Structures are given as structure tokens and as C-alpha cells.
């Protein structure tokens, strides 16, 4: 039982990161019906920018560590949001009317561009976040010793996800985003500036992705220029699992995928965990082709 709880928490921490990245995929899909393949690389850029800010600006030396972390967190989210915004302007907007296949190819190109750019700027070797940044405390939870940083990762991802959910559901701009997701043409007739909403989506999604990259950097310490690929693939899977285009679906899908992986590794075999995770995905898609929460098309986003 203790082991089960431990594995559950292991899975939730991994799944929290998947969910944050998955949100970027699902939001863009919701409004543009486009899989933004460059999203995983925006996540990588977040991790590298975080390290650069911490190392070059010596923030950790100037401010108390929690404050410095918060500052870096905000700066990384803003910078990656800006890159996402520019990406949409440069690579997707000119192809808005050109059919979905062209946009997908453009997204793949953007992904390759970002990955190679990171490699050329930073080099191909592994980078390591400074060790002292990581909060070092342990919490006892129902008889299980949980590293504090693990809980922080879970809590931070849930707070970000709930914040996003409240923004989409409870504000006027959120309502506009939902309207564009349902029918861009009708939304435009209702006086919504569709281009602005799409830009906004490309600010929020990459911002969250960049923040997730920073969290991975701080928590796991080790970053390299290809890390976005595996996280991107898993997050994309999570988005489909939950029902792509659906924000609570991405959250659920991410957490579920993380937990399935941890339990498969813990109770079957480590080497089989990916195979089992994808088997579950296939089974769910056979039963519910639109994903777990994906059926209510009118309620997308």
C-alpha cells in the first residue's frame, strides 16, 4: 500500500508536467485545429532560458532564493510566450487559409528550427541547473515520505491549470476564446477580434510550456536540447487521451498518463512502461474515439 501511494505520487509529479505541456497542444488545437509540433521545443527553450537567467543575471545571488525563483518563473513564462507569439506570426498566420497540411509541415519545420537553434546557441552537451536552487525538505504524507520539491511541482502545475481554467471559464476574454474555438467565423461576426484571440492563445500555451520547462530544469537538474521531443510526444499523447481541444481533458490526460507509466513501471516492468501507457491510450481511443472528455464538441476550450 505504501509502495502504491509512493508510485501514485511519482506518477502525479511526472503527469503534472505532461499536463502543463499538454495544455499548449490542446489550446492551439482548440482554436486553430492545428497540432503545434514546435510546442515541445518551446518547452526546451523555457528550460534553457531559465538556466541562462539564473546564471547570467545572478538573480539567486541578489534576491532570496524563493523570490528569485518566482522572478525567473515569471520572466521565462513571458519570454517563451513572446517566442510563441512570434512563431504564430511568422510560421502559422501566413498559412491560415492554406489548408491544414501546410500548417502542419510549417509546425514541423519550426520544431526542427528551434531544436537546432538551441543546439547551435548552447552546444550539444548536457547542462545542469545549480543544485542549491532545489528546495530540500521532506513532507510525511500518510506514512509516505515525499520530497517537498515533488509536492511543489504537483501543486504548481495544479495552480497553473486551475488558473487557466478559471480564466477561460470565468472571464469575458475567456468566453471569446471559447467562442473562437467553437466557430471562428461566427465569433468574428459577433465582434470578436479572432487574430487577437489566436495571438493570446499563442501567448498562454507557450508561456505555460516554458514554465514547465523551467520546472523540469529546477527539479531534475539536467537539460539537453532534445528533451522537448520526448516530453512533447508524451504531452501530445496526454492531450489526445483526455480529448484534444479540451482543457480539463488535457489536465486529466496528463495526470493519468503519468500515473499509468509509474504503475506500469512499478508493477509490471520498467522497460515496458511506455508500451503499456500507449496500450492504454489505444484501448481508451477504441472505447471513446474522442478521448476521455472529448465528446462535448460544443464545449471545446
Amino acid at each position, binding site marked *: 500500500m505504501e*509502495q502504491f501511494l*509512493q*508510485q501514485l505520487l*511519482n*506518477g502525479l*509529479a*511526472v503527469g503534472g508536467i505532461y499536463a502543463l505541456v499538454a495544455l499548449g497542444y490542446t489550446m492551439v488545437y482548440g482554436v486553430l485545429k492545428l497540432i503545434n509540433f514546435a510546442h515541445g521545443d518551446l518547452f526546451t527553450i523555457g528550460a534553457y532560458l531559465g538556466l541562462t537567467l539564473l546564471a547570467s543575471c545572478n538573480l539567486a545571488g541578489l534576491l532570496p532564493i524563493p523570490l528569485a525563483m518566482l522572478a525567473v518563473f515569471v520572466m521565462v513564462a513571458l519570454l517563451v510566450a513572446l517566442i510563441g507569439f512570434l512563431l504564430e506570426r511568422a510560421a502559422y498566420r501566413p498559412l491560415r487559409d492554406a489548408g491544414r497540411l501546410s500548417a502542419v509541415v510549417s509546425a514541423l519545420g519550426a520544431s526542427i528550427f528551434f531544436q537546432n537553434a538551441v543546439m547551435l546557441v548552447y552546444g550539444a*552537451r*548536457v547542462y*545542469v541547473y545549480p*543544485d542549491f536552487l532545489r528546495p530540500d525538505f*521532506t513532507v510525511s504524507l500518510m506514512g509516505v*515520505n515525499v*520530497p517537498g*520539491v*515533488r509536492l511543489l511541482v504537483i501543486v504548481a502545475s495544479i495552480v497553473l491549470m486551475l488558473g487557466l481554467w478559471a480564466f477561460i471559464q470565468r472571464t469575458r476574454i475567456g468566453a471569446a476564446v471559447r467562442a473562437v474555438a467553437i466557430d471562428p467565423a461566427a465569433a468574428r461576426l459577433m465582434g470578436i477580434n479572432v487574430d487577437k484571440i489566436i495571438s493570446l492563445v499563442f501567448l498562454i500555451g507557450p508561456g505555460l510550456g516554458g514554465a514547465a520547462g523551467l520546472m*523540469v530544469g529546477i527539479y*531534475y*537538474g*539536467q537539460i539537453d536540447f*532534445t*528533451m522537448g521531443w*520526448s516530453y512533447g510526444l508524451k504531452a501530445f499523447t496526454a492531450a489526445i487521451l483526455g480529448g484534444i481541444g479540451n482543457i480539463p481533458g488535457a489536465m486529466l490526460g496528463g495526470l493519468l498518463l503519468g500515473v499509468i*507509466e*509509474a504503475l506500469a*513501471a*512499478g*508493477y509490471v*516492468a*520498467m*522497460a515496458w*512502461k*511506455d508500451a503499456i501507457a500507449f496500450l492504454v491510450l489505444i484501448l481508451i481511443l477504441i472505447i471513446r474515439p474522442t478521448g476521455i472528455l472529448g465528446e462535448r464538441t460544443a464545449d471545446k476550450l
Partner: protein
Amino acid sequence: MKKFVGTLAALALCILLPTQLWAGDLKIGLMCPLTGKWASEGQDMKNIVSLLVEEANAKGGIDGKQLELVVEDDAGDPRTAALAAQKLASSGVLAVIGTYGSAVTEASQNILDESGLVQIGTGSTSVRLTEKGLPLFFRTCPRDDAQGKAAAAAIVKGGYKAVALLHDNSSYAKGLAEESRAILDKAGVKVIFFDALTPGERDYTAILTKLKAAGPDLIFFTGYYPETGMLLRQKKEMGWDVPMMGGDAANHQDLVKIAGVNAAAGYFFISPPLPQDMDSPAAAAFLKSFKDKYGTVPVSVWAVLAGDAFKAIEAALTAGKTEPEAMAAWLKQLKDLPGLSGDLGFDAKGDRVGDFYRTYTVDAQGVFVLQAK
């Protein structure tokens, strides 16, 4: 036409003259990658062997005869190596040292064997090189399967009773894990866990949790340093202080950076020793003269093994064994010759004998410390 012949003769003289002038009585060949992707290894091999030749000559040579080194570049490429081997075979050398990569050495093996020359490979660890039954081939490096034996020996020596083996599905790490398991089974050490992780991931807590439930008294992860670092870090984070060990793929300073100094402290791995870590008087003396001459330390142990190959040939020549068959027979009974990387000796197949692998432990400051035998 006369002028042309004259020029040709002059050219030939220019080429021949230096070798004529410097010709020692005993020639030794060295084949190494002076260009190409392994050039840094090859340069060091040449520097090390030249240094040892100079020292031997300064001491009066062998039986009053001076030694001469003939160097050929193999460029780390099998085809170039075949040419280099032919050149060496026709240059009148008594024996050939080299070379670095297994495939490159393999390309030269038959040529040198047919020419009746003793060859001592230096960085060629592939098992099959000495399994072919070539009577004149030796090597100063360990075989790929020697590491499993060394790892198992370290585990038995450490008194561990229940070991968890973990690899990353690469042919190197899986081979090492399987090799170790077979030997541990025979030695009566229980392998209570055997599984692979996916390299390149960030989160290994799931497998660590599972490992913890199995209750090993040692984790042996046979893979590379990035995953090793993550495992150490997350193991520490779980508050689990079981010892962990690794193979020579963990021998990289970034390991400590990834794991963090606290988490890495106490970790140990087996690896060929670096020259600067070796504690024998022969190694210390060599390292000093190398530093004096070149102002730096050798890049890796593999280049130093070329120096050991020279030491073996020098000893054979000193014993009066200049004929290839006699030299080979003498080398096969050789043992405990003080070399640069430890005691030198060869078995009947031409493989180096003795415990070449050593144990490194990470100390509280994150420094790799070579353990006494």
C-alpha cells in the same frame, strides 16, 4: 632526361638520407591515429612512446644498440591502417605497437601476422581480436568481457549479498549487466532484480520505488553517467541511502554535477585508472617526465597503454628475444612486469592478464578518488 634522373636521384637521397643518418640498430613500429576523429589519442600515443624511446636510448639503449621508432598514421580508418601496416612490415621493424580502435586494429592484424611481426594492440577491446588464434598478436588493454569480471569481483569483495542490476538496453550496458549476473550467480551473490530503464528520461522515481521494495543492499547500474546522475539524485531525494555502483561509462565529471555533490558522495564505479591517479613508482616517474616534456597530462588511459606495449617489447628485446616467435613465446610467459598502468603480463591468447580495472569512489567533495587495491 638526364636532368630528370638526376632530380629523381636527389629526391630519393633526400628521402632516404634522414633514415640513413638516424638509423638505430633496433627499429620498433608504432601505428596510431595521428589524424582523424581519434587524433588526440594518436598524438598522445606517439608522444608517450617517443618519450619512452628517448629515455631508453639515454640509458644506453639495449645491449649497446640504440632504438628507433617508426611511426605510421592509420587515421583511425581500417583502409589506411592496412596501408600503414604494409609500410611498417617493409620498413624492417622488429615489432609493431598499435592501434586504437578495434576495427582498425583488425584490418592490420593479418597483414602483420603474415609478415611475421609481433603486434601489440593498445586500445582495441573487442573480444574477437584475440579469439582468432593469431600467434603473434597481443594487447595491453582489457577485453570487453573483463569489466564484468572486475565488477563482480568488486561486488563480492564489498560483501554485498543481494544486488539489483539495472541497465539501459544499450549493447554495452546490457552486455555488462548480463556478464556480471552470470558471474555473480556462480559466486553465490543473489541478483534480486534485473531490469532496464529508458535512457534520456528525467524521472526514474518509479523504478527506484520498485527497487526499494525489492530491498537490495547494492544497486549496480551499468549505463552511462547522465542516467546514473539522475538515479543518484532521485535516490537521495527519496531518503534512501543504499550504495550504488557503476561501470566505466560513469567515469565522467558531469556525473557529480547532475547528481549534486551530496547525492554523489559514496558512489563507486570500476574503470581503468587514469595515469594521473596511478600510484606505482613507474607511473609517477613517467607522469613527471611526460609533464616536463609536453607540459600536460595524457588525455586518457588508452594512450598510456601504448607506452605499456613499448615496455613489453623493450623487456623482450632486453631478454634477447629479437626473433618474432621467440619474442611471442617470451611475452606469453611474462608476468608482473612493472608497467605504466599496473603490472604487465599476457596469457596464451595474447590478452593482458591481471586486474586492470580499479575502483573509484566519489568523496564528500565530489572528487573521484582511486581506491587502493
